[in-house]
């Protein structure tokens, strides 16, 4: 994906377009990602990558109960999956979204390997959330956010 405009921070519309493209390519087209109200339940899994260099920040995906397992099973084409499969699949999803966010921002920058957690990932005090979207896939809750580093 190429976008000629570069901004100081990632724009919500761009991040949403990237996530939708990743989902269409690897999770499937029969269940679209839809905007949703914030989920009141807990975050079951989260995956994040950091970008450092010309722009410093992090891209994070959060998955409500059951979402990461369902997404991973769809990616792998399997009915039963392990926790390792989930970590691998959602780590790869955030890697793709993060790599494309990196391409939108001033460089050169380095993209980290993904970190996957059960539960929410805590972000440090020197970052601020600059973009967040609440989503629903196959009726299951998830969210994407971008945090930018602040000096």
């Amino acid at each position: 994906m190429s976008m000629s405009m570069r901004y100081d921070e990632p724009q919500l519309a761009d991040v949403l377009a990237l996530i939708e493209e990743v989902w269409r390519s690897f999770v499937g087209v029969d269940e679209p990602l839809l905007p949703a109200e914030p989920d009141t339940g807990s975050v079951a899994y989260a995956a994040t990558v950091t970008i450092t260099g010309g722009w410093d920040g992090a891209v994070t995906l959060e998955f409500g109960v059951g979402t990461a397992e369902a997404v991973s099973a769809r990616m792998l084409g399997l009915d039963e999956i392990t926790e390792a499969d989930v970590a691998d699949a959602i780590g790869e999803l955030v890697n793709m979204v993060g790599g494309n966010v990196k391409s939108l921002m001033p460089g050169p920058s380095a993209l980290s390997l993904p970190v996957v957690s059960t539960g929410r990932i805590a972000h440090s005090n020197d970052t601020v959330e600059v973009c967040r979207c609440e989503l629903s896939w196959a009726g299951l809750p998830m969210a994407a956010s971008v945090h930018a580093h602040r000096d």
Partner: protein
Amino acid sequence: MKILIADDSRVMRQIVVRTLRQAGFAGHDIVEAGNGRELIELVRSEAPDLVLSDWNMPELNGIDALATLRDSGNETPFGFVTSEGSEEMRARAEAAGACFLIAKPFTPDAFAEAIGQVLVA
């Protein structure tokens, strides 16, 4: 023909294999590596006809693995399949001796176009 797929994500290696098939490159022998160090070892032991490699991997990343191969005189056709598709990364890949860079997320058409220059389907 033998194709070496290097990616630290098993899920992505599986998706790459599936996409190769969808792009018309079915029936080739597939060898898999989980990082750049394994990639180098398998290029030397398996002599693949093409390497498809992720960029960011633990142990040794794809661009350093490519540089190591080229420095040692190995000219195996090498393409990146990576989430980083910026012009800067494409220029770095080309300068290091890569044949192409396929950006994730990708389509079978992107595979057919890039790999068709190297392998005959």
